[in-house]
């Protein structure tokens, strides 16, 4: 079994699903968003705190759902911390594109880890599990930008 698990349930995914690094709540929240998939009961709640210049300084999530969903919310945390909101939006686009196509984007170092999810592409019915947190992230970012600039 171990070999066949490789393509979809990479160790990274299992580990993060079992013991997420970013699970929890923030005290100070600059932006947040929820996502849920009534079809399977997946729920995510993302929280962001921002430093100067639209850079994410803190991140936490509370995720209820399958391993793919939890791990993807958690790895989202890895790539948002210390990064500019604009950059994050482009990673979100690239992540969704990877799920749609199954192809890992080139020249994006954050995908060294995120590529673990490329195998989800083959399971159209799991796409939503992988992208739920990322769609919520997009919403949260838009809210933060609006609050800041407009």
């Amino acid at each position, binding site marked *: *079994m171990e070999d*066949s*698990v490789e393509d*979809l*349930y990479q160790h990274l995914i*299992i580990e993060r*699903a*079992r013991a997420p690094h970013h699970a929890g709540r923030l005290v100070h929240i600059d932006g947040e968003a929820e996502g849920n998939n*009534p*079809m*399977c*009961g997946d729920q995510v709640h993302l929280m962001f705190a921002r430093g100067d210049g639209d850079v994410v300084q803190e991140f936490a999530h509370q995720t209820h*759902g*399958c*391993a*793919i*969903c939890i791990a993807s919310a958690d790895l989202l945390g890895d790539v948002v911390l210390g990064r500019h909101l604009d950059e994050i939006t482009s990673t979100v686009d690239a992540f969704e594109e990877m799920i749609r196509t199954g192809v890992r984007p080139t020249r994006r170092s954050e995908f060294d880890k995120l590529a673990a999810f490329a195998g989800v592409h083959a*399971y159209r019915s*799991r796409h939503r*599990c992988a992208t739920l947190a990322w769609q919520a992230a997009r919403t949260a970012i838009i809210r933060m930008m609006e609050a800041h600039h407009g």
Partner: protein
Amino acid sequence: MSVATALSGCLDVERIREDFPILAERVHDKPLVYLDSAASAQKPRVVIDVMARAMEKQYANVHRGLHWLSERCSDAYEGARDKVARFLNAEREEIVFVRNATEAINLVSYTFGHAALEPGNAVAVSQMEHHANLVPWQMLRDARGIELRIVKVTECGEIDFDDLAQVFADRRVKLLAITHMSNVLGTYTPVERLVAFAHAHGAQVLVDGAQAVVHRRVDVRALDVDFYVFSGHKLYGPTGIGVLYGRRTLLQSMPPFLGGGDMIGSVSYERSTWAEPPYRFEAGTPAIVEAIGLGTAIDYIQGIGFDAIAAHERALTDHALRTLSGIPGLKIIGNAQDRGGIVAFTLNQIHAHDVATLLDKQGIAVRAGHHCAEPLAHRFGVDSTARASFGIYTTSAEIDLLAAGIERLKKVFS
């Protein structure tokens, strides 16, 4: 293309498996273990062949074709109706071809529901209905101002007859719409008892037979039901075809559902008159080839015989319940006295989606989610379950593979 024979009430599964081409397929380079028959059953060679042959040799539109191909194709289509009628012990005029069980229930809701029910009346369904037998009644409620009442199911997954009595107490329930077998709990409902009860309280009964009709002989006269619905694709037949049985007098009293060709008596620009049932309810070109395929599927399973099918299912279900309940952390939802070949379960901390995907990686096809019965899942305090369901081609060795597969995937998460 052999039709499996029943051997002393018991079924020769290996011979039956040869009738189903797909069972020889491999998935992720492992032999396919198909445990999702409750979602849709696989098709025997005879069904696939009869459909191809209909299109290769005798295809034309049906009814009033006046030419040879159309006459032969109409004979085959109407012959399928005769087969369904005999299968259910009904009259051919009582058999309406639809797309699936879902359309059949909606047809009753749009016709009987709108014509026979009035504000103040109520429709009752149970807590264990498939969305197909819940949502149409919610829509009718909102359109017609009737009430929708939900009959509780007990913790073991059976109809709560005390609650049923309460729901019917004020005699405002005019229709009981209830499943014959739950697609999640595997529970068979006691239809005869329910029908007697409902009729005594002045209500008609629609029975959703989508699951039950696959496993047990259904006699609509003996059950005394008013409507009975099922889908072809779960009965080893084609997609795109389903059946509404309606008591003759009821069908005759109902207005049409869809308007168009074939369902009319005569048409002028000003007004139209309706054909007699069943044609009143079959507008436009029907699913001709699919109806013919369904007729052959019925021949096929009758060739095997429901005694053998029921015995096989009982043995498989007992084996599955015994084997799976021995797995630590595995919890089976529902344990009705009278239950069939559907087992939904949760597995400790592991989400049902992950269970399904990791089983799939081992070639084992199960379903995960709320199985189109979302409120029922919540009733049992879960979001989703994994579900294994059995057909005539399922072997107990496959159930052992399922159990072994579950043990292996648990290791991944440990």
